[in-house]
């Protein structure tokens, strides 16, 4: 484990930001949109096969920070990321890093389901095809089936794989997007409010799926719903005004938070 005294940001953060089996390490990360500092000196580990939630009021920087992990912020011209973020000790902001394979290793599921305007099969097969992950058609069929099964969608779509993905319900589309992310064998899955466009039943299905997938992948989920964070994650990080205020076991955060701002937020007194 890293020396806790090495990081200035820890003066601000309550709880253990480090993880014994860290997959992603973020150190003293600052993010600017022009002159506006959206993330202020954040240090945290994302452990192997852990589900961690980022919570906090709107504008606290949780989505911005999430998007640093697979360099989605590169697509915003005014955005500058400082500090260091590594996956398996490889700096993802190194000039040699190609973001296309990086985004296969660190997949992402967005707030609004965004299936490609293609068939269900092709939505899932797209990633393995462009990354050359399938040996032949039969192998691709296996990847598609396995991914849809893991996303809990196979039973509902196995007889209509050639139907358009956009014809599915919102919840099914989101599970299709999860299947698409899984199909390229990622190490980490980032989820940015993956259920905010879904009804409670579809939400519950996705949450149950997240719980299952947490056995094999590191999952970082940004959510506005504190109850969702409580239900799905083993670890929770609370952000406020760009700062990481507190991080700890979800059980601890929701039963005896250490920082008064965390207490106020989860009790519905700020936000």
């Amino acid at each position, binding site marked *: 484990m890293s020396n806790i005294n090495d990081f200035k940001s820890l003066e601000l953060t309550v709880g253990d930001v480090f993880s014994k089996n860290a997959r992603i390490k973020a150190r003293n990360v600052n993010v600017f949109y022009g002159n506006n500092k959206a993330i202020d000196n954040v240090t945290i580990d994302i452990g192997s096969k852990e589900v961690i939630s980022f919570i906090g009021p709107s504008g606290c920087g949780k989505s911005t920070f999430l998007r640093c992990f697979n360099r989605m912020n590169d697509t915003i011209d005014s955005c500058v990321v400082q500090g260091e973020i590594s996956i398996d000790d490889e700096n993802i902001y190194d000039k040699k890093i190609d973001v296309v394979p990086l985004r296969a290793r660190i997949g992402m599921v967005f707030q609004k389901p965004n299936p490609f305007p293609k068939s269900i099969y092709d939505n899932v097969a797209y990633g393995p095809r462009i990354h050359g992950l399938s040996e032949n058609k039969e192998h691709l069929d296996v990847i598609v089936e396995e991914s849809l099964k893991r996303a809990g969608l196979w039973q509902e779509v196995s007889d209509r794989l050639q139907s358009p993905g956009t014809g599915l319900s919102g919840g099914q589309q989101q599970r299709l997007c999860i299947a698409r992310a899984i199909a390229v064998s990622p190490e980490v899955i980032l989820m940015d409010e993956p259920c905010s466009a879904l009804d409670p*039943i579809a939400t*519950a*299905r996705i*949450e*149950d799926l997240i*719980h299952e997938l947490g056995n094999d992948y590191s999952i970082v989920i940004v959510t506005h719903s504190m*109850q969702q964070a*409580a*239900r799905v994650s083993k670890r929770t990080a609370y952000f406020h005004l760009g700062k990481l205020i507190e991080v700890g076991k*979800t*059980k601890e955060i*929701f*039963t005896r938070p250490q920082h008064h701002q965390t207490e106020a937020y989860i009790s519905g007194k700020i936000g």
Partner: protein
Amino acid sequence: MENKHIHSSFDNDLNKLNNNLLKLGNTAHEQFDNCINNFGTRNLEEIEKVVGGDTILDDLDDKVQKLGFEIIALRAPQAADLRRIIVALKIATIFERIGDYSRNISNRTKLLIELNYSDLPGVYIGKMGQKTLTMMEDVIESYVNEDDKLAVKVRNSDVKIDKMHTEYYLEIISHMQRKKNFAPTGAHLLFIAKNIERVADYVTDIAEQVYFLVNGNVLSDHRPKADETSLKIPE
């Protein structure tokens, strides 16, 4: 708990809570069973086991309280789930208290052995204990099967224990009045009889919780009571 939640992990949490609660209930039953049995056999080694075993109940109660607290905080349970957790927390505390009474009876049994106690005619501690044990078995069964009819039956049978307690109380006091050196023994016997009567009251409380668990409302009529020890002056 037959209908499964979409969140399978929620079911896992509830099962864990339920399993620990049943373990606590069965251990409380076993402790009480042993303490009543030991009253008759006067086996000091077995009595010490009951006294020492009380910490198991304390630990299980702590576990149930912690699990219930976490489920409320993390799952925001509703309707029957909410009732289940609130009831589990209450019942766990009651089982733990029954354990305290078993320990207390055991400690007093040790003293009675030292006082060379021989059975008092008309006072049947074993019989009173056995009837309470049956109530306890039934109430655990009513919880497991969510059987509110059996729970009501258990609740209404408490009156028999109350009557026995009043009867034994009067008998013990009477004997104490007649035989002055019987006072120390009589005092311990009074406490033991009272402890068993309290255990039966606790079992009744559990029965009422089972009724609430199943129906979502409390039993409206007043529970029948027949313990008159606080109302009668022995002749």
